[in-house]
């Protein structure tokens, strides 16, 4: 029997103590595993949020409020200058205009309703404010809400963000116009198209000009789907807004450069524009999640250190208790190396048992802990807590605990023994797949580090024990 086997056997010598040591180690390891998983979930969520919103900056005229307009429009010249700033990859410009019912053959799909009644009444009683009313033939029933026309140089992602652009729309038929187009063409929202029975190839009039429909889009909201998208140059010409831009979206090459570009734009445009990066808003929202990340990192490190200290003290206690035995081994001619190997093997046995129990427990408690941490910190990232850990063992068994528990494997799976997260989002799922393995790797490395630390002090004590002590009666 070699030193390693003696060590493993010694780990079971005192059952009560072994159970105690393993349980304490398991708690520490479970804590660190769950912190690691919490950290992964939160990190993934932060990255997802950042990636989806991060690298754009919105520039609008000072005092401009969405589709209501306001402020002095910016000029194409000013906006084009932004392309020269470093780290800027694209500038999407848009001009938001209103087509009054007198200026177009189109009818707004938005019901007049109470809002319209009020505005209609308002418009009718005072034709000088006719921008909202129906002008000279002001009667309540003839009133119709104006249609919003957005001139853009980036069809494809112009509508969702409202007047600020930056959103995405899906073409359901036809095709988009080119960014530099000057043609009298339009892509119309699905709701508006239905209301006016427009198809690709249909025409309508706007500002006295015949406009051809080249595409129909759907952005998923009745409000945006009531809009008309036209080339920027065309709207500037027809609406007599030459060189005007009501909003621009500056695309930055990297999330990390957003702050710098934000400053540069502010400096360049001065007081005529409001410069807002979505990142700033998002970062503020992410602050609680970031603090969860920090807490979990510290807890993670803390619990690994804690486990190491526990094991170290236990091993120290065990070595002291077996001081005489160590002396006997030395007297029998055991080299220090062999005795140290024996104790390392003993502490490694404790650690491996603690790691196995702790790993399973850690996964079981990680979801509740993640939810608790995220909700306690006021974070809005509820999806971070819905990442249940799916464990495929290739057999039956397992249990479901709602969104926060295990999902039982449905029979044998090819990836037996693989760990996989089931999350709400596909991207999250994918990210978590690797997190499962790295978590396992972490548990393994942490266990080795803990065992090594725990054994070092024991080893130092072993070396210092004088074999002559065995001849002294206690």
């Amino acid at each position, binding site marked *: 029997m070699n030193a390693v086997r003696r060590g493993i056997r*010694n780990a079971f010598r005192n059952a009560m103590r072994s159970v105690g040591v393993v349980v304490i180690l398991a708690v520490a390891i479970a804590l660190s595993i769950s912190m690691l998983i919490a950290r992964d979930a939160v990190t993934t969520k932060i990255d997802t949020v950042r990636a989806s919103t991060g690298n754009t900056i919105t520039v609008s005229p000072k005092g401009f409020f969405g589709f209501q307009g306001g402020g002095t429009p910016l000029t194409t010249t000013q906006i084009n200058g932004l392309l020269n700033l470093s780290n800027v990859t694209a500038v999407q410009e848009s001009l938001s205009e209103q087509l009054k019912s007198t200026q177009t053959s189109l009818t707004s799909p938005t019901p007049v309703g109470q809002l319209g009644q009020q505005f209609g009444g308002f418009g009718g009683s005072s034709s000088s404010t006719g921008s909202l009313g129906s002008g000279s033939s002001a009667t309540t029933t003839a009133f119709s809400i104006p249609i919003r026309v957005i001139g853009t140089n980036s069809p494809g992602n112009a509508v969702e963000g409202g007047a600020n652009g930056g959103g995405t729309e899906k073409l359901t038929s036809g095709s988009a116009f080119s960014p530099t187009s000057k043609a009298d063409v339009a892509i119309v929202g699905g709701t508006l198209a239905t209301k006016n029975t427009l198809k690709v190839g249909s025409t309508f009039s706007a500002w006295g000009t015949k406009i051809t429909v080249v595409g129909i889009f759907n952005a998923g909201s009745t409000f945006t789907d009531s809009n008309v998208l036209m080339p920027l140059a065309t709207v500037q010409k027809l609406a007599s807004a030459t060189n005007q831009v009501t909003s621009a979206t500056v695309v930055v090459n990297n999330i990390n450069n957003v702050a710098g570009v934000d400053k540069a734009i502010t400096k360049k445009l001065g007081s005529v524009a409001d410069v807002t990066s979505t990142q700033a808003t998002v970062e503020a929202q992410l602050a609680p999640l970031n603090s969860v990340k920090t807490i979990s990192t510290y807890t993670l490190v803390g619990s690994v250190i804690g486990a190491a200290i526990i094991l170290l003290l236990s091993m120290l206690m065990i070595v002291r208790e077996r001081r*005489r035995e160590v002396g006997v081994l030395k007297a029998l*001619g055991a080299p220090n190396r*062999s005795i140290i190997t024996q104790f390392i093997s003993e502490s490694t046995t404790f650690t491996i048992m603690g790691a196995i129990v702790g790993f399973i427990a850690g996964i079981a408690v990680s979801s509740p802990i993640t939810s608790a941490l995220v909700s306690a910190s006021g974070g809005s990232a509820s999806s971070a807590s819905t990442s249940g850990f799916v464990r495929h063992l290739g057999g039956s068994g397992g249990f479901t605990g709602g969104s926060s528990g295990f999902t039982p494997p449905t029979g044998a799976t090819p990836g037996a023994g693989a760990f996989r997260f089931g999350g709400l989002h596909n991207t999250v799922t994918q990210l978590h797949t690797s997190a499962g393995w790295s978590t396992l790797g972490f548990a393994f490395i942490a266990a080795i580090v803990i065992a090594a630390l725990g054994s070092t002090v024991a080893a130092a004590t072993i070396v210092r024990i004088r074999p002559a002590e065995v001849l002294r009666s206690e």
Partner: protein
Amino acid sequence: MLKVENLDKTFHTGAGDVHAVQNVTFNANDGEVVAIIGASGSGKSTLLSLLGLLDAPDRGSIEIDGNQLANLDAAGRTKYRSTQVGFVFQQFNLIPNLSAKENVKLALEFAHWPKEDREARAEAMLEMVGLDAGKADRRPAKLSGGEQQRVAIARAFAAQPQLILADEPTGSLDKSTGQKIISLLREAASQQKATVLVVTHDEKISQQADRRLEIEDGVLKEIA
């Protein structure tokens, strides 16, 4: 053949220096059993620890079959302890979670005996000391004191050492068991051709030795 010359060991304690072993010189032949007697604190255990290379002497030489041992390095002392010397203690000092046989095999492992021979050698040694074959797989706690000391003697002789150092081997046993242990040591010494040094308080025990040495305040002299 053991040759000890001018061995000195002084402990420096807070209460002053203790000259535990002073200028000790003696010889012992192979197969010889030598009793060492002396009052408590006279230096008997210290002398054994020097001879067993558990501790280093301040001065002097220890020779076994012409090999000088007093100035070996740590690795050399470890090797000597595993192959050339066997200890028998008053408290038996068997490893509690190993069986009798495993305790004997442990000594063979440290002495680097060929793996395949260890089992047979351990069984032969247990048979030599008279342990019932049925008790070879018992742990020490399930053996009587006398049986434990037999196992300890089997362990001490297992790797065929030149020198056996027994510190009060009968101190924890009753008189008749003690007698049996001493005769066992005598038989083993002549059978294995090893020198056996037995430290004892017991007159009767010491009289069974081939020779008797007395130590007083670290100074050793032969008793005629």
